[in-house]
């Protein structure tokens, strides 16, 4: 007899479980062989921007200050020709209830759960999102379960994830901690079935719509403070929701083109599902281990169709090193008197480098910060790295080998964001999308143009290279 709770049996009924747990029948949005109607999914299951602002305002979320980093801008101008070095601003999202921009995502998801009559919410996350969901659930009197990948098989935990568990528990959530492995999803599905709670996934339309206010606010804040629009907005990128939601919000606030840059910590060579590698990284989010796969295959998330689709919005994608982010985290403390958690400063490290190639009259906005605390702090994480045998030294950060060394720049001029070839990423997305097909339809063609933000000739050429036909 087949065990109904076996890994295979539970995974086989994942779509059925998800339908009940998010209240969305995703099959309604499927259009072609590989395409779905993204905007319809967002429209049917979202709220207008003004509605989201009202939900958030009533629940301790949003209206965070945009702060000009005068001293960090001055420091960047030491390393570029006169007349260059854009003004760097930061949206201090750590001041949301629960301490990060994730409160924006959670606020709409939990509101939705309450509206639909669910008794509780579940989130699978090792990041700030857990505390965000737990905090919002507390406000609505809903039960909350957070599932984390927290420890290696010896129960040695990542300090920043342990701190996030503490925060979740402080807000009254039940925290399930797991050792390393993608089968976290199996535990998640079983809990959804057992409890009948709402899946407060990071990747539902509600979660992404919640971030749109961040994009629209930063445009308005910038106009009020400088009488100008930002020229560039830098988003720390992991699963792609932060970038997608922010860019969507920006587009709702202005017709003018603003360059959207994604930034991730380079963790090349470390396997995200490896028990051994787990505690040899110093960043558990905002890194390429999530950024790359989620960009080339957004539907790998915990819902059938992810509302985070970063390639539709991204103009440039850059990586920075662990050493560069730690350096900028301390620089933010030293020069601006703002102590914030390291992972959220990934985009700040990138902005410090990117600002040097923009005219001094231009404006670059770093669109988030996150709270810092025990475990979740550059001091704690560098100490933990040393304990795990990672060499920490000063030098050229480009010499850093993730899992072996962390190279802190020996001077700030060595912080250099590295450009990722987006064309290759787009090619991978196309390849992943059509991997089970011999031909696609015209509606799929439109979809892939939107997914890659490219035109027909580009796409047709890619499909030709892959030997994929198009039928009417």
């Amino acid at each position, binding site marked *: 007899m087949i065990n109904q709770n076996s890994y295979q049996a539970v995974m086989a009924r994942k779509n059925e479980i998800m339908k009940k747990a998010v209240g969305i029948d995703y099959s309604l949005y499927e259009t072609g062989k590989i395409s779905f109607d993204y905007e319809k999914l967002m429209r049917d299951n979202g709220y207008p921007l003004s509605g989201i602002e009202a939900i958030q305002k009533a629940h301790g979320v949003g209206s965070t200050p945009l702060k000009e980093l005068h001293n960090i801008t001055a420091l960047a101008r030491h390393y570029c020709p006169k007349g260059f070095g854009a003004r760097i601003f930061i949206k201090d999202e750590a001041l949301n209830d629960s301490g990060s921009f994730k409160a924006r995502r959670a606020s709409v998801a939990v509101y939705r759960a309450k509206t639909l009559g669910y008794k509780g919410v579940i989130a699978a996350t090792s990041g700030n999102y857990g505390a965000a969901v737990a905090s919002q659930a507390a406000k609505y009197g809903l039960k909350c379960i957070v599932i984390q990948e927290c420890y290696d098989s010896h129960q040695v935990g990542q300090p920043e994830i342990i*701190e996030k568990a503490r925060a979740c528990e402080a807000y009254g959530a039940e*925290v399930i901690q797991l050792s390393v492995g993608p089968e976290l999803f199996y535990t998640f599905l079983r809990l959804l079935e057992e409890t009948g709670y709402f899946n407060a996934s990071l990747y539902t339309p509600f979660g992404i719509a919640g971030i749109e206010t961040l994009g629209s606010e930063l445009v308005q804040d910038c106009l009020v403070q400088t009488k100008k629009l930002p020229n560039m907005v830098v988003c720390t990128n992991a699963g792609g929701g932060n970038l997608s939601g922010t860019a969507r919000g920006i587009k709702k606030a202005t017709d003018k083109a603003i360059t959207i840059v994604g930034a991730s910590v380079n963790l090349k060579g470390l396997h995200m599902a490896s028990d051994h590698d787990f505690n040899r990284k110093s960043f558990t989010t905002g890194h390429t281990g999530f950024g790359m796969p989620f960009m080339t295959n957004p539907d790998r998330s915990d819902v059938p169709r992810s509302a985070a689709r970063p390639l539709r919005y991204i103009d440039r994608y850059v990586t920075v090193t662990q050493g560069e982010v730690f350096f900028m985290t301390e620089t933010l403390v030293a020069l601006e008197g703002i102590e914030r958690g390291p992972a959220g400063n990934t985009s700040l490290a990138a902005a410090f480098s990117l600002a040097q190639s923009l005219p001094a009259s231009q404006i670059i906005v770093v669109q988030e910060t996150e709270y810092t605390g025990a475990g979740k702090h550059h001091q704690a994480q560098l100490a933990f790295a040393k304990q795990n045998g990672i060499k920490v030294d000063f030098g050229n950060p480009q010499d850093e080998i993730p899992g072996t060394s962390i190279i802190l720049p020996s001077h700030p001029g060595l912080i250099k964001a590295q450009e990722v070839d987006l064309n290759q990423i787009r090619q991978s997305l196309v390849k992943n999308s059509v991997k089970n097909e011999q031909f696609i339809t015209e509606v799929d063609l439109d979809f892939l143009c939107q997914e890659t933000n490219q035109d027909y000739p580009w796409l047709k050429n890619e499909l030709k290279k892959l030997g994929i036909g198009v039928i009417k």
Partner: protein
Amino acid sequence: MIKKNTWVQIEKVVLKPEERAANVPLDTKQVPLLMWVKGYLQNDAQSGDLVSITTLSGRTEEGLLVAENPAFKHNYGDFVPEILQINQMVKKILFGDSHD
């Protein structure tokens, strides 16, 4: 003896090594998928016993009793001198030696 209704943490095996997903790396496949969860002890027990607990969401979970009144002990770690060096370096670049 740990009394019934005490707040405890249990450990359980979710998947044995042979039950793990096909796509996990070799080092991960050699170890079980473990879970730790906290709740109220349903009966008096000793550390290491197989016990049942009631979690905060009201669920029952079963596993080995590993901690009584489990505490968070994470901290800021051993002092990292490089951080102080960064602090002084950037101040010196921006404000000059006079800053000292």
